[in-house]
């Protein structure tokens, strides 16, 4: 089932909404909505034919946490490309900073519970980097890693 754009409730709960006098940041979608659409900047969304985007429904706490990390990683990536051409835009940079701090916090939490996503996290008492699933596996009910 494809989402209608209007059906989407985005979650601003842990992000501050930037001031209304700031048109460019107003134009930035919440990470979750941007992630589903494939663009963080609202005016860049160009759907194909009748297609919009599909909902992602995590089936476990683990999937939910990883999905949140993927959303933030996506938001950081799209802000990164924008900032490469607008390095003077401090409001966009501050937004990216906020997302980076939040993602790093979630990645440490994820490592503690399920194992590392990068070799920068070493929260486990033994080496678990090699453990399945790898991102291309979809056996064993692990949907997102």
């Amino acid at each position: 089932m494809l989402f209608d754009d209007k059906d989407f409730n985005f979650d601003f709960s842990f992000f501050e909404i930037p001031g209304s006098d700031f048109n460019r940041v107003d134009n930035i979608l919440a990470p979750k909505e941007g992630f589903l659409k494939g663009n963080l900047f609202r005016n860049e969304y160009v759907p194909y034919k009748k297609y919009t985007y599909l909902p992602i429904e995590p089936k476990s706490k683990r999937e939910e946490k990883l999905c949140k990390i993927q959303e933030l990683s996506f938001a950081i990536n799209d802000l990164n490309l924008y900032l490469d051409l607008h390095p003077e835009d401090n409001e966009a940079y501050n937004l990216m900073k906020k997302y980076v701090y939040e993602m790093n916090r979630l990645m440490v939490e994820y490592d503690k519970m399920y194992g590392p996503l990068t070799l920068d996290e070493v929260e486990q008492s033994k080496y678990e980097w090699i453990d399945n699933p790898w991102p291309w596996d979809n056996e064993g009910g692990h949907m997102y890693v």
Partner: protein
Amino acid sequence: MFKYVKHTNYPINIRKKDLRMAKYILTQFGGANGELAAAMRYFSQKFTMPDEKGKALLNDIATEELGHCEMIATMVHQLTKDASLKELEEAGLGSYYADHNKGIYPVDASGVPFTATYFAVTADPIADLMEDMAAEQKARAVYENLIDLAKDEDVLAPLLFLRQREVVHFNRFKELYEYYKKLGY
């Protein structure tokens, strides 16, 4: 250098094998307009971009494209891993099996292997960026063809995501192109 992150850019969980789609989607790994060509194009062009903006943008889009290679390869792997030899042969993948079994090898939808001649490096920022803009439009068009051919939502969702990334990358390249034109390159 590069650091690996142990998750895909966008979730991929294809539950139903589909050899027909696998054969088509593989072109976005090894085809002329695919993600591998994109990654190698921007990676190679970044060394002669004239300023910080160009170096950063080509570096960072190249990095994202490597993640897209992994997404496409993951899709093909999940679409084929449970197929029997008979099913592969019936889908026209017998000759692919002869060379690669169920390995993921960069070829286009007709089985032609990847080649570096799919992209250019001129060290002229205007020529390189104009190629990059065209490449993003061609990749978008191929994703639209694949979306037309797909039926399963598990396949459609990542294709729609990847198509939209082509739109965004085109916009960034165009912005840089226009900026360089203004600077007189």
